[in-house]
């Protein structure tokens, strides 16, 4: 039995001939709540695709218990289905259970119970029978999380699930994910260009920049010295009104787009 849910060793990844990650290493402990942080283009999606087995590594390895599509749950960055597609929230979760199977779905008590349990777990009971396209962004995100969790994966990968959500929705999604990680022992890896909405909840940060990564507890990683070494030039990590602002020296704009979040640092 592997001690880590996932272990990444010296991973090199490229996309359309361009090297995106060069020698990234980190490990995720079972049941931990981990943030994959980096600006747009730093390789978050590329790394997630590699963890899903959709992108072969140029070098290095991915090991651990959470390998293969059965052990992984996934919430993609963008789902733009036809808003008129006749699909209830409940149907979306059912597709997570057996949507990969060929043939017609026969009525199944096990599927119905699992779907109902997942809808309850993400707090989606109230809109379970509504059409997906009629739900708000935050509600849809809960449904996709239930879709990803319904087959009881060991590792849940979420690609920028908080982008384009309002503050109450973000707080709701983060607390649902945190509770699921704690209660069911699922390891959660959530990517975000902004660390602020997550930082109070994270057990671990994997910070991507310049093709490399540093990982550790948030208070170990989110420091001027550590990030300066990663970026290769001086970075200030400022605490302003309880928010983290990460700025390269000599620039007026922070690295993470500064949206008005109210998450407090511990």
């Amino acid at each position, binding site marked *: 039995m592997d001690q880590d849910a996932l272990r990444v060793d010296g991973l090199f990844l490229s996309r359309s001939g361009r090297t995106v990650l060069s020698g990234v290493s980190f490990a995720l402990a079972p049941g931990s709540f981990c943030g994959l942080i980096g600006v747009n283009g730093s390789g978050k999606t590329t790394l997630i695709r590699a963890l899903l*087995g959709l992108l072969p590594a140029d070098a290095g390895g991915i090991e651990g218990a959470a390998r293969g599509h059965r052990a992984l749950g996934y919430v*993609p960055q963008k789902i733009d*289905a036809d808003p008129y*597609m*006749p699909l209830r929230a409940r*149907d979306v979760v059912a597709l997570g259970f057996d949507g*990969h199977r060929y043939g017609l779905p026969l009525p199944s008590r096990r599927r119905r119970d699992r779907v109902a349990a997942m809808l309850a777990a993400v707090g989606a009971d109230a809109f379970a029978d509504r059409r997906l396209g009629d739900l708000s962004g935050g509600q849809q995100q809960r449904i996709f999380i239930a879709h990803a969790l319904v087959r009881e994966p060991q590792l849940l990968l979420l690609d920028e699930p908080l982008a384009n959500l309002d503050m109450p929705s973000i707080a709701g999604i983060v607390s649902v994910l945190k509770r699921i990680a704690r209660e069911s022992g699922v390891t959660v890896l959530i990517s975000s260009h902004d660390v602020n909405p997550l930082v109070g909840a994270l057990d671990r940060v994997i910070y991507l920049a310049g093709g490399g990564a540093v990982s550790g507890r948030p208070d170990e990683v989110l420091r001027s010295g550590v990030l300066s070494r990663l970026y290769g030039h001086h970075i200030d990590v400022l605490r302003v009104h309880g928010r983290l602002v990460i700025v390269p020296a000599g620039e007026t704009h922070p690295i993470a787009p500064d949206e008005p979040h109210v998450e407090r640092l511990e």
Partner: protein
Amino acid sequence: MFADYMINAWIATSLVAVAAGMVGFFVVVRGAAFAAHALPLGAFPGLAAAWLLGIAPWSLILAFAGLGAFGLARSGEKAPHHTATALWLVSMLALGNLLLSRMHAYSNAVFAVLFGEVLGVSNTQVLAVAAIVAVTVIAMALLYRPLLLSTLSPDLAAAAALPERRIATLFLLIVALVTSAALPLVGASIVFSLMVGPASAARLMTDRPGWALGLSVLLALSTVWSALALAYEADWPIGAFVGVMGAVWYGVGRIVRWQSGRLRRG
């Protein structure tokens, strides 16, 4: 209207309606309506060539529709690739035009190619349609859940280890198959309407995918049955009524959805 010489017409059009209603549901929710428009019209030179050579049209229509399906699958069926679809469509129309100009049967034949000829369907034709429809129904039943999942999100399908590209290609080939069954009956310009009209209404009338698919088949059946009755009683060309009904169904669907939205909001 149920005279002996009409029986084959009833059977053949009913079979075609079942297949078109099923496939049409996925055509609409996948946003592949333009591809479904281009495939039948792109197969039009096949029908013209068969006419010119004096052979049964099925094989040549199937060849052209299949070629179109492969081409579209390689370039992608969705919006960014509409240019390729449109160019295919226009070049095939040009080829058909060239072939028709070599024919001496002119207007009658051209009319039948574009708007269908349902009276005088032979026993062999009925058998061919039945075989094509049987293959279509079985393929749709097998692919039902993978198609729903990959329609919702190609990323989710890929993460569930489904061969997403192959499924998309297979689906376009099924559209080509239904096209080749329907084309000689309702005509190249009308197949699209039979495939898309009932389905576009059905998806607005219910929130459940299975019900929407069933409803799409029922609306397609009612369309061809009324078209056939009118063709017999009033000597209308069958294609005319099928074509108009497609748009009417869409309007009915919008009204039903608008009304149910008002009811839900109170």
